[in-house]
C-alpha cells in the first residue's frame, strides 16, 4: 500500500488533483455549476506551471467535447469535466467520442436538467447519456470521485477497451462538501496510470489515417456498433482488474457493485451515488431493531453489472430501487429498469418497487429511507406494493 496524505477538501478539488496527477496533454472545458471548481482548480495548475497540459478554454460544452475528440484522435491524453446542461449540449459529441473509440476521461458533476432550471443534484444528466457508449462510474464520496477518476484513465486507455469514461459525482453534495480524503502521491498515480500509447494518432503524420469516415450506403456501420458493444462488454473485466490493482495501492475497496449487510438481508435498497450512505445508516439502525436490511450500491453503471446485482439481491423478500432521475413514460427510472431486467433470470421472483427521489436536490432525509424500508418490510410480509412508482417525499 502506498503512503497517502489525508486532506480535508471537496470532491471537485480532488478530481482536479487526480487530473493533474494523471498528466493529461489536453483539458478542454467550459464552466458550469457545480462542475466549475474542477476546471478553475486545473486553471491554477496551468498558471502555476505544474502541468504540461494545453488548457483549451472553449466557448461551449459542445466545443469542449469537440476539441477533446480532436485532441484524443491526435494522440493526446484528454480530460474534461461538465454537468447538466453542459452534458446535454455535448450529447451529439458523446456518441462520436465513443463511436470513434477515443479514451477521453470526463468528470460529470451530477445536476438536474432544466426546465425548470435548477442547479442541484440529481442523476438526470448522466442518465440521459447512458446509451452514449461511455463507461460510467458513480462516486458516493469525494474519495470515490478521486479514486474513480484515476481508475477510469486506465480503463479508457486499455487496448481492450478504448472507450471514453464518465466519472460522476453528486453536485454540491460531493462536489462542494468538505470531506476527509486520502490522496496518493504524484509518482504513485503517474506510475499507476502509465503513459498513454495512442493508436492511429493524427499526429503520427508519417502514417496518415482518416478518422470519422462515412460508413453508410450499405457500409459497415452496423458492424462498427457491434465492435463497440463488444468493447464495452470487455470493459467490465478491465474495470474489475484495474479496480483491484488500485485497491492494492490505495487500501480502499473497489467493486462494480458494493454491498452492505446483504449476506442475510430480507429487504434491500439498490442505489447510486451519495445517498447510499443515508441508506446504509438507516439499514444499520433498523438492523438494531431486528429488520434484516441491506444496501446494494451500484458504482459502475455502464457496463451494467447485472449478474452482480442479481447475485446480491437474490435471497431478498423485497427490494426497492431508488432512482435519482426519471425516464418519463417508462416503467420506472433508469436504475429500476436495469435492476428489474437483471432479476428476470432468477428462479425466485423478487418483488421490486421503484422510488424516484431527490430530483433537483430535493432533500434525502433519513426518514425517507425509513419509509422505504418500512414499505419493503410490509411487502416482505405479504402487503401489496405501494404503487408501481413512488415519488419519495414529494410534497
Amino acid at each position, binding site marked *: 500500500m502506498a503512503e497517502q496524505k489525508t486532506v480535508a477538501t471537496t470532491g471537485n478539488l480532488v478530481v482536479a488533483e487526480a487530473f493533474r496527477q494523471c*498528466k493529461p*496533454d*489536453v483539458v*478542454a472545458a467550459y464552466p458550469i455549476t457545480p462542475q466549475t471548481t474542477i476546471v478553475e482548480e486545473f486553471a491554477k495548475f496551468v498558471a502555476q506551471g505544474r502541468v*504540461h*497540459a*494545453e488548457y*483549451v*478554454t*472553449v*466557448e*461551449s460544452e*459542445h*466545443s469542449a467535447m*469537440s*476539441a*477533446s*475528440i*480532436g*485532441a*484524443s*484522435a*491526435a*494522440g*493526446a491524453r*484528454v480530460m474534461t469535466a461538465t454537468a447538466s446542461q453542459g452534458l446535454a449540449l455535448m450529447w*451529439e*459529441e458523446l456518441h*462520436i467520442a465513443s463511436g470513434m473509440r477515443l479514451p477521453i476521461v470526463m468528470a460529470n458533476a451530477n445536476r438536474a436538467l432544466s426546465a425548470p432550471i435548477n442547479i442541484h443534484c440529481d442523476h438526470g444528466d448522466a442518465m440521459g447519456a447512458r446509451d452514449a457508449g461511455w463507461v460510467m462510474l458513480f462516486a458516493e464520496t469525494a474519495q470515490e470521485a478521486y479514486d474513480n477518476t484515476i481508475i477510469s484513465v486506465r480503463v479508457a486507455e486499455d487496448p481492450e477497451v478504448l472507450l471514453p469514461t464518465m466519472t460522476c459525482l453528486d453536485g454540491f453534495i460531493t462536489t462542494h462538501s468538505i470531506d476527509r480524503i486520502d490522496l496518493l502521491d504524484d509518482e504513485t498515480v503517474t506510475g499507476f496510470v502509465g503513459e498513454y500509447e495512442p493508436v492511429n494518432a*493524427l*499526429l*503520427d*503524420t*508519417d502514417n*496518415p*489515417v*482518416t*478518422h*470519422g*469516415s*462515412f*460508413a453508410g*450506403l450499405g*457500409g*459497415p456501420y452496423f458492424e462498427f456498433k457491434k465492435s463497440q458493444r463488444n468493447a464495452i462488454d470487455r470493459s467490465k473485466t478491465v474495470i474489475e482488474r484495474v479496480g483491484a490493482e488500485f485497491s492494492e495501492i490505495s487500501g480502499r475497496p473497489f467493486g462494480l457493485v458494493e454491498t452492505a449487510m446483504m449476506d442475510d438481508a430480507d429487504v434491500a435498497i439498490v442505489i447510486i451515488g451519495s445517498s447510499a450512505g443515508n441508506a446504509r445508516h438507516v439499514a444499520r439502525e433498523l438492523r438494531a431493531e431486528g429488520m434484516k436490511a441491506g444496501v446494494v450500491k451500484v458504482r459502475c453503471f455502464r457496463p451494467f453489472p447485472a449478474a452482480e446485482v442479481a447475485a446480491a439481491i437474490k435471497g431478498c423478500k423485497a427490494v426497492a430501487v431508488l432512482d435519482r432521475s426519471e425516464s418519463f413514460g417508462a416503467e420506472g427510472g433508469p436504475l429500476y429498469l436495469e435492476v428489474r431486467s437483471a432479476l428476470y433470470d432468477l428462479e425466485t421472483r423478487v418483488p421490486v418497487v421503484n422510488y424516484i427521489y431527490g430530483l433537483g436536490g430535493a432533500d434525502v432525509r433519513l426518514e425517507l429511507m425509513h419509509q422505504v424500508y418500512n414499505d419493503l418490510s410490509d411487502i416482505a410480509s405479504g402487503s401489496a406494493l405501494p404503487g408501481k412508482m413512488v415519488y419519495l417525499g414529494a410534497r
Partner: protein
Amino acid sequence: MATLKELSHREDRLEGGHRLCAGCGASVAMRQIMLGAGEDPMVVGCATGCLEVSTSIYPYTSWSTPFIHNAFENSAATVSGVEAAFKAMQRAGKIPADKKVKFMAVGGDGGTYDIGLQSLSGAMERGHDMVYVCYDNGAYMNTGIQRSSATPKGAWATTSEVGAAQQGKIQKRKDLTSIIAAHGVPYVAQGSISHWKDLTTKAEKAFAVDGPAFINVLATCPRGWRCAYNKSIEIAKLGVQTGYWPLFEVEDGVWNMSTPSRALIKAGRKPVEEFLKPQGRFKHLFKPENEALLAEIQQDVDDYYEYVKNRCGE
C-alpha cells in the same frame, strides 16, 4: 510565392478518385489552398458536408494526409483540439521539438456561416495556429440545396422557393469574412476558385502566420447553382468580375483589395446579371415582374463592393 513549376511537383493531399461531382468547386479550392500550405505535414479537419462525405467513404479515403471528420458544426473546435494536442505533446517531449505541422479546418457555408459560426468564432478568438477554410457555394448543397445565411438574395433554394408569393431568398447574404476580420486575427482573406494564383498566394500567407487565419472561397456547385459542370470556373470568375465576390485580404488588421478586384475600380465591373444569368437558381429574376428585385440585387452588390473598397482605402 512558389513558382508554378514548384507547385506542379507538390503532392496532392486530396487525391483523385473521390466522389465529388464533376465541376465541384470544393475540390478545386482544396487543391489550390493545400498547394499553398508548403511541404510541412498537415492535419485536416472537415465539417460534415459534401467534401467530407465524398472523400472518406469507409474503407477508402482520398486524403493522403491525416484527416478527421467529427460533426457538422465543430470543424474549428475539433482542429483546436488537434492543435492543442500538438503543442502540449511537443512541450512534454512526446513530439520532436523541431517538428512542424500545419492545421487546416474546413467547412462549407452551412457548416461555417450558420451552424459552425460559434465554434469558428471561439477558435479564432483563442488564437489556435490553424487555417480555417470555408468553401462557400451559397447553400446547404449536401442535404439538397437549402438556403443558408450565405445564399444570395433572390436565389432559389429548396427552403427559399419561388412562387407567386416569394421570389427565392428574401434576405441578403451575411458578410462572414468581415465578421472574422473583426476578430482581429492575423490573416483573413476572400478568394475564388477562378483565381488560382491569388488563392494559392493567400493560402501561403495564411499558413505562414503564427495564429489563426481564415479564407473564404467562392466555390461553384453546379448542382445547386443549376449550371453546367464545365462552367464552374467561368461563373466563379464572373462572381469576381461583377464585384459580387470582391477579392481582398486583411493582414494584421490592414485591408487590401486583391489585384483582380482592384483592377475593376478603373476597368469597371460587369453587371451582376452576367453572374446570375448562367445559373438556373436565378432564372426567375429575369422575368419582367422581377425587374425591381434585380435592381435591388445590383444595388446590394454595388454597396458591398464599395464597402470593401472603402475598408481597403481605395
